[in-house]
């Protein structure tokens, strides 16, 4: 009971509303209605007053009418029978000489949202389309769309559709735009309103008359039109030129979207259009509304994909202000990284350095990884800053720096000396699992050069019992193995301890499995182990990053002026995880809470890998599943000998086995000349080996041999 005494209040209101003295005094009557509305907005359930309110509706006082309508629309669904009474009043109001009353009645009639009332509403709506007042027509046109939404399966009345098409020529621009909106909704199944040449030209000629919102709408719908000749195309473009530099960001964005759509076959024209919107876009970046700034930034990122030099001279516009929200700062840094060149690199790095100590840890991390990205082209300067940051002894900064170094070394092996010397003594500052994973990976790759590596590892192994993160444990196993290969005398003892712990005591299947695998590998002899475990330290294919190649505009034109570029994971994950080693992300929370339609495109995009990028998805309770573990040695035709055994991917298979291709992304394997170990968690009873194998072979490419073994889960339930 959130509101004590609400029943009393309702009773009081009802008494007042039905009191003839109140009813005869217009002012008192209206104030009582007002009180009821106020109570409603405070959350009191006043639906019992419905019948009194229906009576109050029959008044000449337009204010009272408005108030009552608000009430009726909110509670109509609860009282469908009584709503019939309302309809009569509303229909009477539709005949009122005052156009304002007519439009009000019509609007509320369609807002009642009761399918049972549709038959009574149709006639006044049809009359409304032919009303002499524009404001009534505006409402009537949209009314048809609302009716259609009420009964989406009902037959579409061709006469109404024709009439709506006719009203596209209405003298009032709002009626015209509303017609477009209504037709879009009504004809959704047929692909929206039909756009032909006369309609297009009519809409374009009247574009200037409508307001900002209407212009956006028209421009969006015109994207469906394909001009018949080049002359026509250029006529349209020159007509739209003024809106392209419109001071209203929504109009500018909609026009550019239309431009890009129309000129998809003319890249030179599209590029010229991008140049032209630079000014308005930059202005939107300086807008007082932070949301507009953010959206403009996201769209600039899109544009930079095709025209990397577009904003070169304006890099200072992307410096962050102190009070800007984190999401803007992070986007600005992403843009800054794209704009770096020989002249401004010192200035940019100086600025980014300032952001590394930001109060918000996420912003600080973004700044550090931005420096790391610039480091691919200007490694010396960046490493200097990064090692300087380690001196601050801040947990989150150290973690971010180590992760960044890890990424950097993978791309620029020449940095390894500096990185190795910087690593000493930073393990005490690392608290989060990602930072420790990165440190372990670095120790594995450059263990022989870091003198304190065995001691660091020993510390990790001593604490392995209390280690919560699966990723760290897996990484620890691989690192100890690899360090053992280059410094056997120092590490032999601790490797033994670690393997013993992982095989005998560890509860996690993946860790245990991995440890067993290494154990057996060691049995095969040191030569074999070396062959398998000696992995790459860097990715030669990436090399020094000298600016991104310009993408064709068509790659992103479809997502311009939509919500896609604004998504969190949209652009930034791609460069962030590009080429980084397998420590990437151990996402403890699978993205299953997002719907399929919204999400799958994202996964696909991430799954198009640049070599070595894996996406481990780990599900919270693996022991619940029966488990199939298998090592697939993949010999692609690029390299014959298996090189690496440290890439592990864990995936859960939720569906039946035939869906396995959804779990194992195919293109991933084309790039790997190595042994890949996959752990697939199965929910079903483990099927015969041959079935699994055939399913897997179906997925993999021809020149791949698959070795498959099935482990039963330790404690199936």
């Amino acid at each position, binding site marked *: 009971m959130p509101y004590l005494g609400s029943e009393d209040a309702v009773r009081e209101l009802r008494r007042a509303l039905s009191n003839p003295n109140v009813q005869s005094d*217009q002012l008192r009557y*209206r104030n009582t209605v*007002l009180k009821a*509305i106020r109570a409603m*907005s405070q959350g009191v359930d006043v639906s019992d007053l419905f019948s009194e309110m229906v009576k109050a509706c029959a008044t000449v*006082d*337009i*204010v009272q009418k*408005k*108030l009552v309508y*608000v009430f009726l629309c909110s509670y109509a669904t609860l009282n469908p029978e009584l709503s019939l009474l309302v309809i009569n009043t509303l229909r009477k109001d539709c005949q009122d000489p*005052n*156009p*304002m009353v007519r439009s009000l009645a019509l609007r509320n009639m369609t807002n009642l949202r009761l399918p049972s009332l549709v038959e009574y509403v149709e006639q006044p709506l049809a009359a409304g389309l032919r009303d002499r*007042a524009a*404001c009534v027509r*505006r409402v009537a046109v949209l009314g048809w769309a609302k009716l259609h939404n009420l009964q989406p399966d009902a037959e579409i009345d061709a006469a109404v559709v024709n009439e709506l098409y006719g009203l596209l020529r209405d003298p009032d621009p709002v009626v015209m735009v*509303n017609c477009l*909106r209504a037709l879009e909704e009504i004809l959704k199944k047929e692909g929206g309103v039909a756009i032909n040449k006369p309609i297009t030209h009519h809409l374009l000629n009247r574009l200037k008359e409508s*307001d900002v*919102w209407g212009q956006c*709408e028209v421009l*969006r719908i015109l994207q469906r039109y394909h001009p018949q000749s080049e002359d026509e195309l250029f006529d349209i473009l020159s007509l739209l030129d003024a809106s392209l530099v419109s*001071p*209203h960001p*929504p109009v500018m*964005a*909609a026009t550019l979207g239309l431009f890009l759509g129309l000129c998809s076959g003319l890249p030179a024209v599209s590029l010229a259009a991008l140049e032209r919107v630079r000014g308005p876009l*930059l*202005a939107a970046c*300086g807008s*007082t*509304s*932070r*949301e*507009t700034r953010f*959206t403009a930034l996201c769209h600039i990122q899109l544009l930079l994909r095709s025209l990397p030099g577009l904003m070169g001279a304006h890099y*200072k*516009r992307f*410096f962050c*202000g*102190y*009070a800007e*929200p*984190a*999401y803007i700062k992070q986007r600005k840094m992403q843009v800054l990284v794209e704009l770096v060149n020989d002249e401004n690199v010192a200035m940019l790095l100086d600025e980014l350095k*300032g952001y590394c*100590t930001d*109060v*918000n840890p*996420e912003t600080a991390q973004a700044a550090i990884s931005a420096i790391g990205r610039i480091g691919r082209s200007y490694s010396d300067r960046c490493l200097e800053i990064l090692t300087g940051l380690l001196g*601050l002894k801040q947990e989150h900064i150290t973690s971010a720096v180590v992760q960044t170094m890890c990424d950097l070394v993978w791309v620029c092996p020449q940095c390894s000396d500096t990185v190795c010397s910087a690593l000493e003594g930073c393990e005490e500052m690392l608290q989060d699992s990602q930072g420790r994973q990165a440190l372990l990976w670095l120790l594995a790759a450059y263990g022989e050069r870091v003198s304190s590596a065995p001691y660091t590892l020993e510390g990790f192994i001593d604490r392995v019992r209390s280690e919560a993160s699966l990723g760290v444990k897996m990484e620890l196993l691989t690192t100890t193995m690899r360090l053992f290969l280059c410094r056997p005398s120092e590490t032999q003892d601790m490797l033994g301890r670690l393997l013993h712990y992982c095989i005998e005591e560890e509860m996690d299947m993946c860790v245990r499995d991995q440890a067993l695998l290494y154990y057996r590998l060691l049995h095969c002899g040191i030569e074999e182990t070396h062959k398998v475990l000696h992995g790459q330290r860097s990715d030669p294919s990436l090399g020094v990053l000298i600016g991104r190649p310009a993408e064709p505009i068509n790659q992103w034109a479809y997502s311009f*002026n*939509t*919500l896609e570029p*604004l*998504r969190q994971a949209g652009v930034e994950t791609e460069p962030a995880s590009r080429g980084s080693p397998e420590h990437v992300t151990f996402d403890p929370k699978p993205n299953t*809470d*997002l719907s399929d339609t*919204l999400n799958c495109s994202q996964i696909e995009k991430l799954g198009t890998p640049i070599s070595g990028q894996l996406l481990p998805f780990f599900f919270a309770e693996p022991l619940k599943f029966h488990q199939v573990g298998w090592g697939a040695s993949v010999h692609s035709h690029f390299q014959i000998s298996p090189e690496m055994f440290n890439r592990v991917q864990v995936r859960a298979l939720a569906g039946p086995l035939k869906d396995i291709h959804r779990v194992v992304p195919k293109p991933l394997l084309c790039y790997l000349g190595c042994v890949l170990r996959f752990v697939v968690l199965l929910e079903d009873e483990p099927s015969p080996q041959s079935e699994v194998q055939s399913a897997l072979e179906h997925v993999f490419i021809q020149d791949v041999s698959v070795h498959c073994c099935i482990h039963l889960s330790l404690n199936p339930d």
Partner: protein
Amino acid sequence: MIHSLFLINHSGDIFLEKHWKSVISHSVCDYFFEAKEKAVDPEDVPPVLQTPHHYLITVHRGKLFFLSVVQTEVPPLFVIEFLHRVADTFQDYFGECSESVIKDNVVTVYELLEEMLDNGFPLATESNVLKELIRPPTILRSVVNTLTGSSNVGDTLPTGQLSTIPWRRADVKYTNNEAYFDVIEEIDAILDKSGTTVFAEIQGVIEASVRLTGMPDLTLSFMNPRLLDDVSFHPCVRFKRWESERTLSFIPPDGNFTLMNYHVSSQNPVAIPVYVKQSISFFESGPCGRLDITIGPKQTMGKTVEALMVKIHMPKAVLSANLTATQGNYTYDLPNKVLVWDIGKLNPQKLPNLKGILSLQAGAPKPEDNPSLNIDLRIQQVAISGLKVSRLEMFGEKYKPFKGVKYVTKAGKFQFKCAALYEPFLLSFWTILFFYFTTF
């Protein structure tokens, strides 16, 4: 397009909701609250969130979140701009856009939202038209209303909606015909340790207050229109005339409106009205630091700098400040770690100075992040870009209007980056000085 709107306050209560299509349950906002929990600062919630069936597009204005629920793919700028328009309208109607004011005027707010959107599409958003439909509440009017029984809702159709000039109502009559223009400029600048400009730009706006009878046609011309780049106009301005002659020609809306926004940047060097000499240092030994700030006039175009105020975001470890100011007074807001020094008028003969000791939390490491100085100021009667209105002419009506132009310069995002002095020599020097003071 826009399905529903929720208004949410900083503590996370939904205090108003409006649905234009079917009713969407409150629970959709949980995704927003989740993101808000995660964010360090409530303002850090990203403007677009994705839920399984909807998108949530949020705009943050004056400690309120305007959260719109959208079911299909929409142009984001469109929705964001519209939500800001809603907030602007509330501001326009009630003087401010805050929770208490909206709650007080909840009925008007519902009426406004009803008029602004129909079936999720923007309907009437022009302030002039809306004010004809629903009159803004004023104290006088509410008194009159209660006495006479008239209302704040117009009972005739707004004439503007039918005329060819949608922003102006017909048959306006005034006894005093006046047209006032305020040129307001804000300096957005970042200056580095040595005082050189890292980034500077001027955001200008011309606010107009026009009360003229009939259907006047105004022409406003500038002495130096070439200064302006990135202009954006009220829809009443004839863009063709601006492009060809660089004059503003328009039939004004009735009442207050924003005539144009502009930026001045890149080509023209921006005058920085004040300079700051500052040093903030923290000692290697002992939990304290030292602060010394002096402010002086630089390029003020011969006018006095007023309402000068310095805001410093201190490192987390700073507990208190024991300072002396030669002018004005200072406060240290401990929970937010903000030091505010309110100076007032800047006297070029006697420069204001603030210095003293900052005490740190015992045992905390020496703060590393350099505090930055945010400056607030105001200069009357000058537009810092040098923009000047040369003349205002009126056509179409016979009377002589009273005309006036006012210039104001303010600081927008005006920020000095601090030099953090960690040089060993300086530190030891200050330490010695400090010991000198404490021992004698």
